[in-house]
């Protein structure tokens, strides 16, 4: 049920520690970017958990990371330096971006030495990306096998793929439900669900998702057709406080494009003879982070389709302050939605949300979208 997800979100470390108690022979591996091929690690009986920030100001990262790196990357590193992830057996990432990569490098120097690093290609648009990533994943698989001292079989992999695919399908189902005029859950609630699932054993998550869909969401009306439908998109975002503030103004967030939201689970692994290649293909084909959307701009039409399918009236683009890949899309993105007549505001996230400064921008957007009220 939604409250259970909220509980996991808030007590993510307790969840992981409990899991470890229940699975004493298994390992917990922290990862930093949603391009990380979790299936490989899950197939090895591990629990992959996403490392996110805590949204609290901190004073521990400055000796290790430059202040012009995005607040998210600094917040992530702070979690490690403050010892919140002490239960991790390894830290890992697929090449994310320079900023999060810096957090990873510092983390391996100062916090967790055991690491896995996947050279995720950036130019996913080249045909050579799949064979390259497949090769790198095969090596990663070997590294895991050496570490845990046993083989990861094809059937382990297929099992992991099935569990992850089921999770993706269930989350998609919830997103489909948000297409309704009377939305069964708020964007804030949905963010709790998707983000909590980043920390959960997907088998547990799937069970809970099924229950939530069947027993809680079906027939529920969290918001009505009078609420203004919005989409949020941009870089990492689990700013519950922000979403909550937006939805207090008779608005509802019905879909998103964030790596902690839809981008994480949108597409399944399509079956192929070679499960490793199937996994590689999935990460190459998934919805794009701006970091990997070039030379052609494929992300913008994708976002427009999503906005239309979910019938949104306006868009709130949120990026982590100093996030270069998002900033490099800013002009194109704003032009694109202007051409396509969807009012959009663009905000920058920091460690804490300056609610006062954001309120006015959000309210002004809503006033624009609901002009009948004032005019």
């Amino acid at each position, binding site marked *: 049920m939604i409250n259970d997800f909220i509980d996991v979100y808030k007590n993510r470390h307790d969840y992981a520690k409990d899991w470890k108690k229940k699975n004493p022979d298994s390992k917990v591996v922290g990862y930093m970017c949603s391009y990380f091929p979790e299936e490989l690690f899950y197939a090895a009986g591990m629990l992959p958990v996403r490392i996110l920030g805590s949204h609290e100001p901190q004073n521990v990262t400055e000796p290790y990371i430059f202040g012009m790196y995005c607040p998210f990357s600094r917040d992530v590193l702070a979690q490690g330096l403050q010892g919140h992830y002490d239960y991790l057996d390894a830290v890992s990432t697929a090449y994310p971006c320079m900023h999060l990569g810096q957090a990873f490098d510092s983390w391996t120097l100062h916090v967790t030495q055991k690491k896995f690093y996947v050279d995720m290609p950036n130019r996913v648009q080249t045909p050579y990306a799949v064979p390259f990533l497949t090769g790198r994943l095969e090596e990663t698989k070997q590294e895991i096998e050496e570490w845990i001292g046993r083989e990861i079989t094809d059937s382990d992999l297929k099992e992991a793929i099935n569990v992850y695919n089921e999770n993706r399908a269930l989350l998609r189902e919830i997103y489909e439900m948000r297409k309704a005029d009377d939305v069964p859950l708020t964007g804030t609630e949905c963010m709790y669900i998707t983000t909590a699932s980043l920390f959960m054993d997907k088998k547990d998550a799937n069970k809970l998702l099924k229950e939530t869909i069947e027993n809680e969401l079906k027939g529920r009306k969290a918001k009505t057709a009078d609420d203004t439908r919005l989409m949020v998109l941009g870089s990492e975002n689990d700013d519950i406080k922000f979403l909550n503030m937006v939805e207090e103004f008779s608005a509802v967030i019905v879909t998103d494009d964030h790596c902690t939201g839809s981008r994480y689970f949108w597409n399944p692994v399509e079956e192929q003879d070679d499960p490793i290649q199937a996994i590689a293909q999935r990460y190459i084909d998934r919805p794009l982070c701006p970091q990997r959307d070039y030379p052609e701009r494929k992300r913008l039409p994708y976002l427009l389709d999503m906005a239309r399918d979910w019938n949104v009236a306006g868009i709130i683009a949120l990026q982590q*302050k*100093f996030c270069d890949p998002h900033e490099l899309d800013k002009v194109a993105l704003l032009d694109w939605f202007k051409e396509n007549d969807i*009012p959009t505001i*663009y*905000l*920058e996230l920091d460690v804490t949300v300056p609610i*006062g*400064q954001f309120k*006015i*921008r959000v*309210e*002004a957007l809503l*006033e*624009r979208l609901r*002009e009948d009220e*004032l*005019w």
Partner: protein
Amino acid sequence: MAEMEEQTIEYWRWDEGNWKNPDMDFKDAEILTAGIDVGSVSSQAVIMADGELFAYGNTRSGYNSRDSASNVMNMALEAVPGLKLEDIHYVVGTGYGRVRVPFANKAITEIACHARGANYMYGPKVRTIMDMGGQDLKAISCDERGKVLNFVMNEKCAAGTGRGMEVMADLLKVPIQKVGEMSFQVEKEPPPVSTTCVLFAKTEALGLLKNGWSVPKVLAAYCSAMAHRIYGVVKTVDVKKEFVITGGCAKNSGIINRLEKELGFEIYKDTKVDTQLAGAIGAALFGKALYEKSKKK
């Protein structure tokens, strides 16, 4: 240990006061509405009679937004003997403290209100509004009714906001009302200061003074840096020549003239109304429309 000297003059303070239109009587009006703009720095209350500016009050914001709202409303009411708060049909709050105006019927953002207010002050031709507040720069584009079409605000860096000018006025001991005028007392326009960061500009300004720059020259360099910065924000909306500035900064000719040079055209200044009132005026006008709407229901 020798005494530290107390600094008593507040160079950064704008004028305060109230006003009433001497040619109007509130008893003739069908609808009386008020707009209260509780900003981070100053608060304004405007009373409008059938959509015409009738009276206002303007004062520094205090710590408590509710008190600021009440104070400034009382100030406006005091300008009109016999007028009481109960006589006013509809009150709209705007500005930072918009939801804290205790006697308001509705809160509306200053973005919508400034556009609407500018439309009243300068007429329906206005298409671009720049509001320079204490900590925000807002560039707004609007239609002939003063309806917002798009808006942009400064992000990630407060450089170039009104607060910076206050700090500078305080540092150089120049009353803020005189900053503009004084910034033209230079033989040759100096290059803009390299940083508009409020805190760094302070050290840079001190450095320039030590290098023998005159106060007007430093002000000129700072005003032109501010104009640059504002222009940068404005440029990201569709700038039209029908351009006005609202807020306290509109009174600073040192910035305005330099901004005009950058824009390559003259900014509309043709209004008799104090530019600081734009938000409150817009709010009062929305109040009238909303009141009429509520009557129709």
